[in-house]
């Protein structure tokens, strides 16, 4: 299981190294609200997030590390009914900086 998951995830991370970011240290623009059991929508983000920002913790919760976020908004839209994700744009000037777009 872990091998199957590791291969594509590692590749996404490699791809993100190509991109430019200005990380707003200590002020993540996406937060997963505290929960005990994640909804199916939130769980779906583990594979659905194009930057691989979502992962499962040892205790079965879902967490987000938004540094590599591409600001597409998919997680916001997928979890709009469950409200488990608090999503804002990064502060002006921060976040991904597309060179080509």
């Amino acid at each position: 299981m872990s091998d199957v998951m590791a291969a594509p995830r590692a590749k996404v991370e490699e791809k993100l190294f190509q991109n430019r970011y200005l990380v707003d240290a200590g002020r993540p623009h996406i937060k997963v609200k505290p929960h005990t059991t994640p909804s199916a929508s939130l769980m779906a983000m583990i594979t659905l997030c194009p930057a691989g920002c979502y992962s499962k913790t040892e205790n079965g919760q879902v967490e987000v590390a938004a540094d590599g976020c591409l600001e597409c908004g998919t997680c916001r839209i997928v979890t709009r009914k469950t409200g488990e994700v608090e999503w804002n744009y990064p502060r002006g000037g921060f976040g991904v900086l597309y060179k080509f777009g």
Partner: protein
Amino acid sequence: MGEFSKPFDAIVVGAGPSGNAAAYVMAKEGLNVLQIERGEYAGSKNVQGAILYADALEKIIPEFRDEAPLERHVIEQRMWTMDDKSHTGMHYRSDDFNEEKPNRYTILRAQFDKWFSSKVKEAGALVLYETTVTELVKDLSGKVIGVRTDRQGAPIMANVVVLAEGVNGLVGQRSGLRNEVSPDTVALAVKEMHFLPRETIEARFNLSGNEGVVIEAMGTITKGMTGTGFLYTNEESISVGIGCIVSDFAETDVTPNELLEAFKNHPSIKPLLADSECKEYAAHLIPEGGYKAIPQLTGAGWIVVGDAGQFVNAVHREGSNLAMTTGRVAAETVVSLTRKREEMTAANLAEYEKRLGQTFVMKDLKKYKGIPDLLHRNKGNFFGTYPKLISAAMQTWFRVDGIDKISKEKAIIRNFRETRTLWGMMGDAFRLVRAWR
């Protein structure tokens, strides 16, 4: 930002194609315009394939070809239906597209948007970058009278706010102007930029000078999901990407990255990208709900343009031209009301919708209003069964193996009927024709 004591004639939220079109037209006509963009520069947050349709921009900046950063003009369109090992293509290439004023160009949005933004400033608008609009300011009657940003200071006031805030449209949604976007009316697309020497691109795609090719592909590449892949030639790079409806993605375990990798490694695509260097990986949402998904577009003191208004023609892969046209028409409406010294009331701004109804934007979206639902409901057939059947038929037809042609014809027809029944096919054809008209 206490320095803005006098209200602006208009504030534009966002500096993509729709916001830039709106801000440019209003500033050019002498209005006092403030445009606010969250990125470090216009384009730094924007992602598109990208094809620029000249007509929409020509109506705003007629001489744009002399100065805009354009990549290649498109002389050839390839439409592919694909299974796992094959593609069946319809290609249209014409020397007519090598005209003095070409019709379509490939562009890189980060560079193009930066240029468009410089034109907006030249026209006299004030543009604030690195500033995120956080909310709309309303008066007691509910009329929008300005915005708040993530910068320190008092709200900034304006007679009208043009919301060109893109597909996520947080400001409008949080102010209750429209509903949240639904996962079944929006596609998630991922894209990479692959660099190659220009001679290699020209040799590989049979091009000379600034000629360009675009490939649009559908079939098993989206693994049963509603979606399409694309490959566009730029001057010294290739844009390659794939997108599917978000709710389809949510039902599978396929990651967007895996889907893109599989597309890039398809035997029909892989040689086109050989030896290239990837320099960027991007993701973006595309509103694909069409006519039925268009939200309320105007109200007291506000007006919506571009992706925030769901202005994308998914069937024809058109979006930036709809964005620029809605931006222009919104601006012309605001200019006309300002000149007549009319208030920016809901009733007066509704003129924008009336004007839009007379353009290709509304006419095209209306024409295809049934297509998004049809494709999504029948995704298994349109994005799986038919591409496989077409590919099998082509292979039967072209492989010379001692079997006579009458038997081959029968085998092809039998395969179609057994896989998708005659009634099923007739129903699909009927529904497609009805939705197309």
